[in-house]
């Protein structure tokens, strides 16, 4: 078992509280993604787990042992850095074998492990090159390989794909995920890209201002966001928010509706002006300005028989309303009153 458990982990930089008493259990063998806007403390938390920063208070348990005072290497975790952080003066072979070399392993074992990992990551032809002579994707694979060689208890990824172009990023996402599943090693992956989080994670932890805003599977977080922040952060395009009278009718301060649950329907009761239409082939998004001032996005309009500037009617799909209170926390779904149709309201 290689569980990582955080209990009240707190870190300050001067007066700034970077992580505020975080309690978290990282499931064994699962792919956990830390996601949140920049400055939310997710990278700091990863560095605290890695041992690159010292924890101010709280406990960090790795395999049930408090590791807060253990050196980074002795924690048995491997990290892939955003910049890859390869050793530029060493060949790919030396980069991959460095951890084994400093651990004074026999030369034959180092050679064998290095070749094995290179094979796994298709790096064999590049073993005698230096990082400077590799493409971005290849450097990325060397960085992953360097983590693999050590057979760590867990992988820590710090926004590893942010320096790659979109196509390569999508490819590497799948490659990393496949590798992790194949090896069954626990992984913690930090990103600010919610799409990356949704596609890769077994479990997502959403951070905000040094606190855990919500943790759960991608489906749970998408379907039942715990707060308006999570609702707006996860999902693309982002959730529509409506306040005022329509929210009040639902007994909430704000209501949220995902773009796919907002339909353009002459029978609908929300009037809005079409501002722009994004046609993406398999999908289309209509940007609308509601009469009450909010900007809304509706997804998947079948026949686009209107243009910018037209006024259309919108209908919210039944049961698709997320309600939020004055503190922006999610409210439990209301029990529908008999006969009442709360989804047909005028803005």
């Amino acid at each position, binding site marked *: 078992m290689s569980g990582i458990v955080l209990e009240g982990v707190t870190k300050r930089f001067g007066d700034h509280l970077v992580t505020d008493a975080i309690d978290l259990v990282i499931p064994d063998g699962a792919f956990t993604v830390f996601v949140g806007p920049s400055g939310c403390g997710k990278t700091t938390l990863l560095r605290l787990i*890695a*041992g*690159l920063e010292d924890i101010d208070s709280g406990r960090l348990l790795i395999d049930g042992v408090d590791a807060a005072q253990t*050196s*980074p*290497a*002795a924690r048995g*975790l*491997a*990290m892939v*850095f*955003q*910049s*890859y*952080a*390869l*050793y*530029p*003066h060493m060949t790919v072979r030396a980069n991959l074998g*460095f*951890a084994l070399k*400093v*651990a004074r392993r026999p030369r034959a074992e180092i050679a064998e492990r290095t070749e094995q990992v290179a094979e796994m990551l298709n790096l064999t032809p590049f073993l005698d090159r*230096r*990082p*400077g*002579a*590799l493409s*971005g994707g290849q*450097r990325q694979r060397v960085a992953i390989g*360097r983590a693999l060689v*050590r057979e760590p208890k867990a992988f820590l990824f710090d926004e590893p794909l942010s*320096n790659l172009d979109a196509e390569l990023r999508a490819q590497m996402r799948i490659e990393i995920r496949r590798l992790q599943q194949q090896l069954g090693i626990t992984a913690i992956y930090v990103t600010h890209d919610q799409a990356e989080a949704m596609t890769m994670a077994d479990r997502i932890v959403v951070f905000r201002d040094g606190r855990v805003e919500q943790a759960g599977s991608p489906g749970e977080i998408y379907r039942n966001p715990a707060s308006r922040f999570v609702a707006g952060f996860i999902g693309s395009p982002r959730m529509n928010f409506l306040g005022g009278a329509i929210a009040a009718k639902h007994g909430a301060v704000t209501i949220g509706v995902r773009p796919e649950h907002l339909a353009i329907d002459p029978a609908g009761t929300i009037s809005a002006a079409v501002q722009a239409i994004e046609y993406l082939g398999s999908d289309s998004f209509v940007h609308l300005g509601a009469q009450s001032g909010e900007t809304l996005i509706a997804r998947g309009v079948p026949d686009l028989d209107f243009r910018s500037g037209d006024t259309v009617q919108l209908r919210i799909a039944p049961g698709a309303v997320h309600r939020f209170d004055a503190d922006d926390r999610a409210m439990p779904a209301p029990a529908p009153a008999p006969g009442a149709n709360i989804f047909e309201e005028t803005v």
Partner: protein
Amino acid sequence: MRTRRRHRAIATMFAWAASLTIAFPLLWTLLTSFKTELEAVSFPPRFLSFDWTLANYRGILAEGDYLHSLVNSVIVAGGSSALVLALAIPAAWSMAFAPTHRTRGILLWMLSTKMLPPVGVFIPIFLFYRDWGLLDSRTGLVLLLAAANLPIAVWMLFSNFREVPGEILEASRMDGASLWQELVSVLAPLALPGIASTFFLVFTLAWNESFWTLNLVTTEATPLTAFIAAFSSPQGLFWARLSAASILSIVPVLLIGWLCQRQLVRGLTFGAVK
């Protein structure tokens, strides 16, 4: 196009003029070292039309003091530079990669010690050295010159280390490298150009240092600076032999500069990150 060529020609002329002006004393010393003592002081001075002679060099090398002083200079400059690097590398490492809010202050304070003229501390240091038996000793010079050059070395290495991406050092820490391995296997190779140029600078400074070397040593530990100075004292001024001695003193530094140069131009950090 034509104006650009003219600008280039003017710039080239300026560069040559500046270089010759700067190099003139050295070139003149070189020429004088091949003259006889009479020609060395003749007026008007002769540039190339004189009787070239190696007598000055032969005389200096025959006296035997040169070798003694050369060995002393190599030991004093080499030893103090090695000591400087041994202290400055860890110091600069901690300031560059684990700075605190006092780091800037410490750096400035260290530099401020260079603002005091050495003569200001001459008496106390002379007395200490007398009591500790360090007068006229190579150990005494090594310690003193190391202390004198340490601030500059820390400054140079600090700015150089800051160019090394910290994540590479963190990666080595994750890989299990000890502090020593991190410094030797990762930081030193990456910062080699900076370390080489720092070494060259402090070596040259120690090699040419002529306040302490002239005042704290007399016979046993005399380096080349004292050797050169000897030609301008007791028996009178010997320009030609003084010049020859100076040229012989410059040669080792030029050699080291040439050796270090290969490291100075090698950019190793390329491709490390991004």
